[in-house]
C-alpha cells in the first residue's frame, strides 16, 4: 500500500516506529508463550497446536528486536486527524442497533459531508440518500443480506 507522507520530525518518527515494533514484539512473545505453555509444541510424532504460534511468535519477536537495535526510526507523518474517520465510523456503528444498518450508514455519509467536509446540506443529503438507496437495493434486495433493522423501525411500525 502506498502511504508515503512527508517525513515528520525525528521525535515523532521515533515514537511511531518504536511503538509499532514494540507492539509487534509483545504480540510475538504472547503467541510464543501461549504456544509453548498452553497448546503443546510437539505431539503424536508431529507439530502440535502450539508449534506455529511458538515458531512464528519467536520469529516476530527476534526480528522485531533486531529492527529496534538497528535504530532506523522511519515513519510517515500521522496525526489525530487521520483517526477521525475511525472515531466517526465507530460512533455510526454503535448507532446501528438503534437506526439499523442502512439508515446509520446513510446518516454517517450525510453528517460527515455536512459537518466535516463542509458541503451543503442538500448535496450531503442527496449523496447520502443515494448511497443508502444503492446499498439497500444491491445488498438488501438483490443479495438478500439480512441487515440489522434497528429498534427505531420497530417503534415506528
Amino acid at each position, binding site marked *: 500500500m*502506498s*502511504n508515503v*507522507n512527508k517525513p515528520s520530525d525525528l521525535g515523532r518518527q521515533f515514537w511511531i516506529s518504536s511503538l509499532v515494533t514494540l507492539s509487534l514484539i509483545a504480540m510475538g512473545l504472547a503467541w510464543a508463550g501461549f504456544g509453548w505453555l498452553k497448546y503443546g509444541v510437539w505431539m503424536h*510424532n508431529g507439530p502440535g497446536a502450539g508449534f506455529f504460534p511458538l515458531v*512464528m511468535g519467536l520469529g516476530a519477536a527476534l526480528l522485531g528486536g533486531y529492527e529496534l537495535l*538497528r535504530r532506523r526510526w522511519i515513519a510517515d507523518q500521522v496525526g489525530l486527524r487521520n483517526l477521525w*474517520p*475511525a472515531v466517526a465510523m465507530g460512533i455510526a*456503528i454503535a448507532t446501528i442497533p438503534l437506526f439499523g444498518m442502512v439508515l446509520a*450508514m446513510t446518516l454517517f455519509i450525510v453528517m460527515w459531508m455536512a459537518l466535516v467536509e463542509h458541503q451543503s446540506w442538500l448535496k450531503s443529503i442527496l449523496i447520502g440518500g443515494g448511497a443508502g438507496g444503492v446499498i439497500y437495493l444491491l445488498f438488501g434486495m438483490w443479495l438478500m443480506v439480512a441487515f440489522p433493522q434497528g429498534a427505531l423501525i420497530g417503534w415506528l411500525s
Partner: protein
Amino acid sequence: MDILQSLLQGFATSLTFSNILAALVGAGLGIIVGAIPGLGSVTGIALLLPLTFQMDPITGIIMLGALYYGCMYGGSYSAILLNIPGDAPAVVTSLDGYPLSQQGRGGKALFTANISSFIGGTVGIIMLTFMGPILAYVGLMFGPAEVAALILLALCSIGWLLGDNPVKGLISTFIGVMLATIGIGTAFGQPRFTFDSMYLLNGISFIPLVIGMFGFSQVLVMMVNRIDPAAQGLSSRLGLKASLLNRKEIRSIIPASLRSGVIGNLVGILPGAGATTGSFLSYVLQKKVGRNGSELGKGRIEGVAASEAGNNAAAAGSFAPLLSLGIPGSGTAAVLLGGLMMWGLQPGPLLFQTNPDFVWGLISSMYLGNVMAVLAALAIIPFLVKLLLIPASIMIPVIAVVCVVGSYSVNNSMFDVWFMLGAGVVAFFMTAAHYPIAPLLLAFVLTPRLETSLRQALDISRGDPMIFLRSPIAATLLTLILLFVLFPLVKKLFVAARQRRRRATAE
C-alpha cells in the same frame, strides 16, 4: 485430433443464441459481483445456482462458467480503483494497481487487468483443453509434503520481495501466520487464542481483515493525503484514449501474461493452492525475471498483468482436477461440483466417456465466457475510471460505508464490522511505520493449508522429517527456499569482497 474434434463439437453445442445470451448475462453479473468488496465467485455462483436448475444443464453451466470468469475480472476493479481487494488474489493486483490509480493511470491499470486476464485465462483454458487429465494427475503428485514445501516457498518469498525492508516484510509475514492460528484449526481441532469468545472460534474472517487493512486504512490515509483530481489534471489523463495501452505497453505485458498464465494454471490444479498462490507466484516470478522487476510495487502495469493473468489461469486450472478426478481445486469449483451432481452428473475419470457433450460443452463455454467477460469488462472501463474523479470529500465517507457493509455481508456479523474497523487502525499504524501489509494478508491466507499439510506429511512419515527430502518435488522446492534465503546474503558478501578488492587495487 480427437481433442480438437471434440472441442469443435463442444463449440457446436455451446454456440447457440440462448447460450451466448446466458454467457453474456453470466459475465455481466460476475463482473458486478466480483467488483463488490466482500463478495467473490463462490457467493456469485451460489446465488445463481438455484436459477440455473430451471435451465438446460449445458446452458446453466455456461452461465456459471461465464459468471466465474466475470468475477475474476471484476475482483481487480475495487483493488485498482479503491485499494479494496474484492478477494484474496486481488491483494497482489492492488500492489501495483492502486499506485497506478494514484498516478492517474487507473484506466491503463484496468485495461491491463482485463487484457492480461484474458490472455492468462486463454492460456489456462488451452492447457486445460489439451492436457486436462495429465494436469490433474500432476496435481495428484503433490501430496502433503510437496504442498507444504510449495507454500513454504511462497511464504519465504513474500517477506523478502514485498516492501523496501525485508526484515519488516518478514515480521509482517510472521504476524499473518500468527493471526491465522486464531480459532479452531482444521489440523488440530483445538481452539487457540479465542479467549473464550465464540466469535473467534471459527478464526478471523479474511474479507473483514482485508477490507480493514487495505480499504479502511486507506480512508485514514486519505484524511490527510488528499488527491484533488481537478488540480492534478487527472481528468485529462482518465479519458478513454489516455487509458488505452500503446504498442510498447502491450509488448511489455504480453510476456508477463503468458508466463503467468502457465505458472497460474499449474498452481491452480493443486487442490487448495488456488488463485491466490497462482497470482502471487506469478508476481514473484515477474519480479525476479521480468524487465523492471525492481520497480514492481511502485505502479507498473507488468505487476498488474502478472497477478491478473496468474489468477485467471489458476481459475481454469482448478477445473482440471474437478472434471478429470472429481476433486474440486478451489472453493468455487466445490460449489460447481455440487451443481453438477444436482444435474445428475458425476465428475470423475468416466465423465469424459459418459457425458462428452457436457464436458466439451463446458470447456468450449470457458472460451466463450472468457471472450464475453473481456468484452463486457472493456466496455465498462470508461465509466469505471470516472470513479477516480470523485473528490475525497465524497470518497472518504462512501468508501468507509462500503467497508462496513462489505465486511458485514460476509457472515452477517457485527463482530466482523468492529474487527474490520480495528484492523484498519492497526494497519494504518503499521503502514505508517513502513511495515508492508500484503505479506501479512498473503501469509494469513496460506497458513491453514500449510499447517494442515505439514501435520499430514509428518503423520504419514510417523514424525520423520526426511519425508521432505525423499520426495524429489519437495526436495527441489526446499532447495529453492534455501537458495532464496542464501542468495541475497551470498550476493552481499560477493559485492563487499569485490569492493574490497577494487579499493585494494586503487591503493
